[in-house]
């Protein structure tokens, strides 16, 4: 029992890091510009397919392909920002919801037409890693380590670099930031780009460990919402912690009860947090 519990907990945390990474993308965008990005799921799916296509057709190592996917994700974010978000940034929230939802529909529509909704696998293995009694597939461990690394880089970027500080300044108070001479539109685009990049990276990592299809981003988008509320809206660190909590629930709950209870517990927790502590565990951005 003890061993199973430890194994399940570690497994949960390993996948939780990746959930957290996806949620950080969503929460960063919300925190900076009060936009709920409804295209988050399909963007995760694009990240999955980016890695899949580079691996399958160019034979790239998936973790190297991930770097290309990350850059593409950043650029995609700029494109989506200027086409769909910039114009509605000061409009009532419904406008940005609708416009990001349109992007969502477009990606899903084109993706379904080109790739169908069938499943694909990134057929890549790093063997099985044995640490004492704990065994984990090599790709899963690597994916989690990469997610941690990306989280660390994001933190350094936000707190140690000038553009990162600009992003935080704009998140805090856009008008004051503009008065200090910070080019807010460019910073908003950068923040959106980074949010999108995080989503594509998490998608790419998921592709190395689980089967993918064009609709697969949807379930991670839902998880991201739960995590974001759990950790506090607009708080990237909170999102990572929320991700770990969600992963832990998914890992440990099945030890004690039927696995079908996991989503029930997750969503009950979601509603409870909204009712009891709507600022999330770590507090919202203010």
């Amino acid at each position, binding site marked *: 029992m003890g061993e199973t519990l430890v194994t399940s907990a570690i497994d949960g945390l390993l996948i939780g890091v990746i959930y957290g990474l996806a949620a950080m993308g969503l929460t960063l965008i919300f925190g900076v510009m009060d936009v709920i990005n409804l295209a988050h799921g399909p963007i995760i799916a694009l990240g999955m397919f980016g890695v899949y296509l580079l691996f399958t057709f160019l034979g790239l190592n998936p973790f190297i392909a991930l770097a290309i996917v990350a850059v593409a994700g950043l650029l995609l974010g700029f494109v989506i920002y200027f086409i769909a978000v910039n114009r509605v940034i000061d409009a009532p929230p419904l406008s940005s919801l609708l416009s990001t939802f349109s992007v969502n529909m477009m990606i899903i529509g084109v993706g379904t037409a080109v790739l169908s909704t*069938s499943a694909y696998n990134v057929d890549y293995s790093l063997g*099985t890693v044995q640490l004492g009694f704990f065994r984990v597939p090599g790709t899963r461990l690597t994916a989690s380590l990469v997610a941690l690394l990306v989280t660390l880089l994001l933190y350094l970027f936000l707190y140690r670099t000038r553009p990162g500080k600009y992003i935080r300044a704009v998140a805090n108070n856009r008008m004051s930031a503009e008065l200090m001479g910070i080019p807010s539109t460019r910073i908003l685009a950068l923040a959106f780009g980074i949010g999108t990049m995080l989503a594509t990276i998490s998608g790419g990592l998921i592709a190395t460990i689980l089967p993918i299809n064009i609709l697969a981003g949807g379930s991670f988008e839902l998880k991201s919402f739960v995590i974001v509320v759990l950790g506090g809206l607009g708080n990237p660190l909170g999102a990572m912690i929320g991700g770990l909590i969600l992963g832990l629930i998914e890992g440990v709950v099945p030890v004690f009860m039927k696995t079908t209870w996991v989503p029930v517990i997750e969503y009950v927790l979601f509603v409870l947090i909204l009712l009891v502590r709507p600022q999330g565990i770590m507090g919202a951005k203010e």
Partner: protein
Amino acid sequence: MSRKSFFILSMLLVLALAVAACGGAQPQQPAPESQPTKAETKAEEPAAPASTEQDVTIGFTASQTGKYNVSSTRQTTGLQQWIDDVNAAGGIKLDDGTIVKFKAVSYDDESNKDRVQELYTRLATEDDADFLISPYSSGLTAAAAVIAEQYGKPMITTGAASDATYKQGYTQVFQAYTPASRYLTGALDQLAAVDPSAKKVAIVYENSKFSTGVAEAAKTYAEDNGFEVVLFEGYDPDTKDFNAFINKIEAASPDAILGGGHFQDGSTFARQLFEKGVAVKDIALLVAPPEPTFAELGDAAVGVIGPSQWEPAAKYTEEAAKEAGLPWYGISSADFTKTYQDAHDGEDPSYHVAGGYAAGLLLQKAIEDAGSTDPAKVKEAMDAIDMLTFFGHLKFDTSEEAHGLQIGHDMILIQWQRDDDGNLVKQVIWPTEGATAEPLYPIH
């Protein structure tokens, strides 16, 4: 807008997304894919004088998209192969001289139950299909069966093994497959034969109509035969990450893992069992292993056993029919396999293809015996069928409680093994009289 209303809004959104995820997109009404067959070209050749030709429409849906895509496409291919064969042979000649030829009308059901009901209604009314063939999977077929019964259109089901559909008092629905209740019992018999000391089994199955039926029947059978079921649990059909399950299985330390569901979850489950390095002696999964594409799993496929409705190596021949005292009907296994291979770069047909073809054969035989295409007469002829085909023995339950349930057909067990050159090959290991190789046991 206040922060609070943002929270409420986001909650609503999550709800909306969840609903959308369950319902799936609802695309436009598709145009029917009428598949022009060789018959239509042949029909222009001078026919025998005084014979009239009758086109019979066969309606069905196929999962061209969605999770049943792989198996469903194969099933449709098999059915189409039969249509081509029967039309190329000049159709069916009835006693009154009428020549019956077949054409198919089909739609994409997107592996979605709601679409199935909508589309079968359309097939029965607007397209006026004479006979129906089921979609792939028990869940979709259950939805289609309601419509077939409602409109009095005989439907042959294939790729649909769940017993429940045939216990609803329907009279128009006929099953080509061995029912779910007998799906995994052979795997337990085989395990007992190869290792009488293996007693602990974990049954982990997809929460779908078919797999639940199989798992429950397997559990009862296991307990009646001295096995200990150490884990019995279902997983969500959309499960992609089996890690939590695998940890649970390891904690129960079974000798054998039985279960699975359909192709995608089954192959993912097998892959993750292997990646995690689970030490188990025997793995028998539903549906996925007999698929030729299962070999793409590589090392993860080695040793995995799967019950199969049919295999190219299965020994159902005219001689076997004589021995069993059954009438033989239709083409030989070799001919069927060769036609398929010629059209598919030498790939072996899976049992889904054979099932599709067998559905056609059943219809052909019933129309021949009835001497008519009248649905009521065909239904009567169907009830009386008792024959051996390349697909195996076919006979229906005609009792009121389980009308249409398949009672003639039996399962085969296959196992993926490495041959001398290290290639992955599918071997028949059960029943022993039809075996092509010794079982690989234990796997680890």
